[in-house]
């Protein structure tokens, strides 16, 4: 039994999601190899070699793997799959994008978004926006799995794996990268932040999110949003927390002007402590909040900032 984990990386550094995925792989038992595919990603491979519990790092450094285009990356992973019983990737927008192509190419099912490893072939995963948890058993020879990163701790450092360079370069020639507009922020990333403050429709407009940013700066927090706030155009999509946005589980989640639709709760209800600030005391968010404050957010949030 051996597991291939597909690493996620950016500018020569491993992304945190990879470390959570390695922990899930460790729970399967067996050797763990890490694939770093991209362009100019040697530094990321060196970082990957230091992750505890990794046996070997495979480095595929070629232009065609730049931006992790699904068509090209899936061909590479499919080719590398022989000899592995499990192939794991984080359930990020990158992992969700290419992994099903790998599964279909191997003629196996994919098990999406697992939250626990019950055995080598049995896993738990949320369905219906997390309103039910299914335990599923796979009969396929290779298990292709995406991992909900908030459900697993990050693997530590201290490994000293060898790095093996691959010469493979698959360019399917059907897709190409045009551009990207990535959010630039000095604040922590939503998916790894210890504290998150999120705003909903109650924020009324995008400018008012500045109030949340001020609180975030005092707490070292990330700023998130509900779907309603993103749909209304207050803030960009990368801030969305929820069933179809980002799944987060910080130590502290502060929901401001968020009513608490089940699709939003699906993305944050595993947070350790939840605070809700809302003027509507009937809002469903209060049913999951550890601390609720029924108040006008335009009074409460500036006061909170002052008193921190």
């Amino acid at each position, binding site marked *: 039994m051996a597991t291939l984990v597909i690493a996620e990386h950016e500018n020569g550094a491993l992304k945190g999601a990879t470390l959570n995925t390695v922990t899930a792989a460790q729970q399967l038992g067996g050797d763990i190899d890490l694939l770093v595919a991209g362009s100019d990603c040697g530094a990321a491979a060196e970082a990957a070699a230091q992750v505890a519990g990794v046996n070997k790092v495979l480095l595929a450094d070629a232009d065609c793997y730049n931006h992790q285009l699904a068509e090209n990356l899936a061909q590479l992973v499919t080719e590398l799959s022989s000899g592995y019983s499990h192939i794991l990737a984080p359930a990020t927008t990158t992992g969700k*994008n290419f992994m099903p192509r790998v599964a279909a190419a191997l003629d196996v099912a994919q098990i999406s978004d697992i939250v626990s490893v019950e055995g080598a072939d049995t896993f738990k995963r949320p369905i219906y926006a997390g*309103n039910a948890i299914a335990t599923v058993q796979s009969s396929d020879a290779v298990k292709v799995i995406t991992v909900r990163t908030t459900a697993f701790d990050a693997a530590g450092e201290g490994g000293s794996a060898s790095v093996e360079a691959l010469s493979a370069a698959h360019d399917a020639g059907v897709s190409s990268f045009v551009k990207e507009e990535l959010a630039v922020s000095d604040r922590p990333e939503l998916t790894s932040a210890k504290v998150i403050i999120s705003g909903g429709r109650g924020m009324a407009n995008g400018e008012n999110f500045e109030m949340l940013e001020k609180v975030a700066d005092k707490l070292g927090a990330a700023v998130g949003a509900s779907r309603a706030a993103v749909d209304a155009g207050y803030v*960009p999509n*990368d801030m969305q927390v929820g069933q179809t946005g980002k799944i987060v589980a910080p*130590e502290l989640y502060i929901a401001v002007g968020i009513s608490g639709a089940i699709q939003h709760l699906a993305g944050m209800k595993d947070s350790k402590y939840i605070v809700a600030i809302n003027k509507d005391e009937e809002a469903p968010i209060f049913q999951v909040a550890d601390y609720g*404050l029924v108040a006008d957010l335009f009074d409460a949030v500036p006061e909170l900032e002052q008193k921190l």
Partner: protein
Amino acid sequence: MKVLVAVKRVVDYNVKIRVKSDESGVDLANVKMAMNPFCEIAVEEAVRLKESGAADEIVVVSMGPKACQEQIRTAMALGADRGIQIETDEDLESLAVAKLLAKVVEEEQPGLVILGKQSIDSDNNQTGQMLGAITGMPQGTFASEVNLGEGIVDVTREVDGGLQTLSLKMPAIVTTDLRLNEPRYASLPNIMKAKRKPLDVKTPADYGVDVTPRLKTLKVEAPAQREAGILVSSVDELVEKLKNEAKVI
């Protein structure tokens, strides 16, 4: 150009589902069903392409028991021209759906296949990508903008860090995210007209596809419930609790 749209019948997104007491699944008896919201966005995008003159025919396909014809008729009322139902009582997994869709693609030769990025029941987020692997077509998943060019389609995607735009050679696959468009409502005359549009009924066997599930669901449980906490009366009390009780700030 022909556009193929796949739609799924799911529990209406407003319904709060219940897990069966024997943990065998989710209770679907007498529950309101509807078209998966992401599939509605897929239908809307196809209709807009047709209205702009870029597409000349929209074929809608759904798979499942006879009841899923309702969702095909809904798509027709919104503007799809004809429908294909692949009838089965099997609870199809994404791989089986993708294999069946690949057969439909082979027959219909669409320039674009539009699907929802995930269904809100199984939350798999797999079918479009799997169809891509089987057919060799490129994919633009989680789309928030679709722009057709000459033999190519540019797709802007909602990714974790923001937005990414890819250029795909057609035929191509697009899976929809929430902000691609706002689906319209069907008008009564269009609902009536939809009843007369052609709808073919097929079976997986007609396409020679084995739809045997690869995964066995051992049990389905309700998630651990959070206990409701307390209401605080002031910001001062909130800060005090966070500092001294929760110790998170």
